[in-house]
């Protein structure tokens, strides 16, 4: 749907010539996020610098019924920040100012385009940090973190983005600038803030975010335990949690991943290990010391081959090196991969790992695993060669089956990446018509014309555009009316 000349002129009037991308080459840059499967270039990209410009753009698009796709750094993994039906993309990259750092109240207010790690760097010298740490944190924007409710390795202890957002300023799909939440810990009325975090740009566009800052922990202990069987490692995870230890991070790598990493970056994981567990504890020194010993003992009891404790910062970085470079290292095994993000109850880890192996064998695909074991959040990488179309089909089938297996075990389709275009079709696995209908109507309160990021988060209904039709309960027949 090409945009009309007057429409583009109006956009240019709002954001200025430097804030508008309309050439085919320029728009191509925005055709996908990190999930490169899904491509769709917007018809124009607007790069506002202020909230009032965002209001004007949304009002213009609403009047003309032009779809809007918000985008931060484009590092999402779900096809959320691409334009399947064209329209206007609003990039927040130029809204990158830290507006206020309020240490007495342990919070900061930033524009949405501020990079995650930049905020931590801005407050680190005072001893504070911003807790959400998706592996994209060097490039991903805080607005994007809010939209996808991003997680990261350390969310096991600290929680995901929603636990760290105190307030939002947002332009809704109706073009209204609203303030949700604020610095204070509570306020009367519905928790619209809680609903808006993770709404993936389908409610509106965030123009400012107030986040909580945490004080850095006194001590950090990083332990690497290797096992000859993934079941043993999985059981160690359960035992650590059951012992009342809440590590800051609890990550697992499987055999295939260990091999890829050893060949790649040389993190020096034991060669005959079938699973590596990375345990990080932080907090007061005495607690970290006691719990570290207990965690190490649990690993030995579950038959660990080796338990290493990082002695200093350099060793700690080395232990993490392999984990952080995992996704890159699989490039040695196959040209490309599908990345899954499903969650199972953590006690089901041994069962789901057996299932992963069986699914890989059934569909003749290699599956490498690196995941947030502490909260049961899997990240299987299903490897395939994109030059062989038939391989992709097998990878997709394995992916689908894996997702269903996780749901059957009581899990969820996405733990931290989000739904986007990629998993919208999978939500009916987890939710009934009534549940999806509720979400659809919730969204419409913010975005009455459904112009915000269409096609994302909610599946489109096969029967009608009006959403989902729940079944009403039976009430006794008619005499009382």
């Amino acid at each position, binding site marked *: 749907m090409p945009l009309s000349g007057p429409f583009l002129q109006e956009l240019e009037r709002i954001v200025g010539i430097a804030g508008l991308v309309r050439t085919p080459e320029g728009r191509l840059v925005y055709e996908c996020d990190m999930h490169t499967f899904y491509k769709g270039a917007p018809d124009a990209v607007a790069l506002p610098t202020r909230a009032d410009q965002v209001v004007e753009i949304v009002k213009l698009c609403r009047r003309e019924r032009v779809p809007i796709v918000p985008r931060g750094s484009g590092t999402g993994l779900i096809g959320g920040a691409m334009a399947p039906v064209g329209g206007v993309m609003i990039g927040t990259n130029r809204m990158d100012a830290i507006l206020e750092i309020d240490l*007495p*109240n342990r919070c900061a207010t930033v524009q949405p385009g501020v990079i995650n790690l930049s905020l931590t760097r801005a407050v680190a010298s005072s001893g504070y940090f911003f807790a959400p740490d998706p592996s994209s944190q060097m490039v991903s924007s805080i607005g994007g973190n809010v939209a996808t*409710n991003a997680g990261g390795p350390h969310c096991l202890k600290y929680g*995901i983005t*929603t636990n760290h957002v105190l307030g939002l300023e947002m332009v*809704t799909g109706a073009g209204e600038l*609203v*303030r949700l939440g604020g*610095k*204070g*810990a*509570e306020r*009367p*009325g*519905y*928790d*619209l803030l*809680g*609903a808006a975090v*993770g*709404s993936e740009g389908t409610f509106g566009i965030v123009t400012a975010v107030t986040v909580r800052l945490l004080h850095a*922990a006194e001590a950090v202990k990083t332990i690497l335990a290797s096992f000859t069987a993934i079941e043993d490692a999985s059981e160690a995870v359960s035992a650590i*949690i059951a012992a*009342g230890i*809440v590590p800051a991070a609890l990550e697992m790598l499987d055999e295939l991943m260990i091999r890829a990493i050893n060949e790649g970056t040389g993190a020096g994981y034991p060669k005959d290990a079938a699973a590596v567990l990375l345990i990080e504890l932080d*907090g*007061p*020194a*005495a*607690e970290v010391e*006691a719990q570290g010993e207990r965690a190490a003992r649990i690993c030995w009891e579950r038959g660990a081959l080796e338990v290493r404790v990082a002695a200093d910062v350099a060793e700690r970085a080395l232990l993490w090196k392999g984990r952080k470079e995992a996704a890159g290292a699989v490039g040695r095994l196959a040209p490309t991969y599908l990345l899954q993000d499903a*969650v199972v109850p953590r006690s089901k880890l041994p069962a789901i790992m057996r299932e992963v192996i069986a699914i890989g064998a059934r569909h003749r695909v290699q599956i490498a695993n690196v995941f947030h074991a502490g*909260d*049961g959040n899997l990240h299987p990488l299903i490897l395939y060669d994109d030059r062989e179309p038939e391989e992709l089909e097998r990878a997709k089938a394995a992916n689908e089956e894996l997702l269903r297996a996780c749901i059957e075990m*009581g*899990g969820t*389709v996405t*733990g*931290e*990446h989000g739904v986007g275009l990629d998993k919208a079709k999978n*939500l009916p696995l*987890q*939710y*009934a018509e*009534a*549940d999806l209908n*509720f*979400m659809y109507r*919730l969204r419409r*309160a913010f975005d009455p014309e459904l112009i915000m990021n269409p096609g994302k*988060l*909610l599946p489109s209904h096969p029967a009608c555009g009006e959403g989902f039709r729940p079944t*009403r*309960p*039976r*009430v*006794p027949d008619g*005499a*009382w*009316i």
Partner: protein
Amino acid sequence: MAVAARSIGEALVMIAGRDRVRDDGGSLDAATVDGVRPRWVVRPASIDQLSRAIALANDGGLAVVPRGAGSALELGNPPSRVDVVIDLTGLDQVIEYNPDDLTITVQAGMSAGALAALLAPHRQWLPIDPPGIAARTLGGVTATNASGPLRARFGGLRDLLLGVRFVQADGVLTWGGSKVVKSVSGYDVPKLMVGALGTLGVLAELTLRLHPLPDSERSWLVALDRPQAAQDFVARLIDSPLQPNRVELFNDDAARLVLGESGSAGVAVAIGSVADAVLEQGERLGALAKAAGARITPLPEGFWSRVDSAMAAPPGWTVLHVASLAGRLADTIDAIGDIVRTASGAAVRLNGCASLGTFRVLMRGASDAGMAAVVTRVRAWIAEVGGSVVVARGSVELRKAVDPWGPVEPGAFALMRALRDEFDPKRVLNPGRYVGGL
């Protein structure tokens, strides 16, 4: 549409059975909400019965008031209509408990005390502790977003509720969230239900995140008589490596109520961890207190259960929930004290989470008009901080004289009204009681 009362009663009996529908004078008097007497009290035995009773109320244009233990019925505006009180205490079953996953799914009418008893053998707990918690239902605690001292470390229900099953105003049973500790599948519907007073749906089933019980917990009182000294001490505490479970501030009246004559204003700090770490952190807490020039004394075992019973509001007292900021602790305490003293000379018991700047203020003494004036003045003061004042408990007259919720930002309120209009256009659920008369 015209509805005959007698046949609605019969339909309710068809849904829930004769012994679960009451319309006798005694039952109705006992279920009165702010002086408004319902026509029926229904106590569903299953979620299906709950759902059908609400569908019936919707068809008949009736007003439904969901009720748990009945301990927070004075929250919100006096209702404009009450036809059916739905007593949820019959829905008290455990649906699924997975100790290894630190999650549990229970029906919303289960009491927090029953849950605690169930979890204790597994050394787990749901760390939420508003006054009188043991008797309250989990659904009631969720719908009213109640919290207590443990909030300092573990947050509120919004941080603990993973999934929720609820009955919408038209009777449709709906699920939101997930049963695992980490999920971003779809909108975060559970958060929307916390503190919504059942106006978007009656809570039927909750999936909760549990925490391991600490090996050991000890508490100390750091005596600080000036609010500014308390604020400075708390700031240093938060910036220290200590990880307290509770950082609860008490004014003189509140401290004496809990500790007897020896009590004095200060901050009670609880440390929970492995035993060695508790001792070590206790020593460091002592050093922090000394540096602040404050006296520190160990608190007796059972201190927090005494807080729980002592700080419950006696009949006739008014309770305000004041949300300020940690950086404005001293200002806020001084302002509340000044306002109450000049208005009435009434007694004030004040406690609250010092690290978050949230307070619970218990007052007695003034007339309803005097109380209303206090609320208005505290509200005016707190507006500049960006905080809020909610009348959590108070007489009907007080809550008619002053908006118990206080102002809501207009843009956000327009969205709240849109949600209420969308999900309950006939105003079946708790009509008039929520913010702005929604």
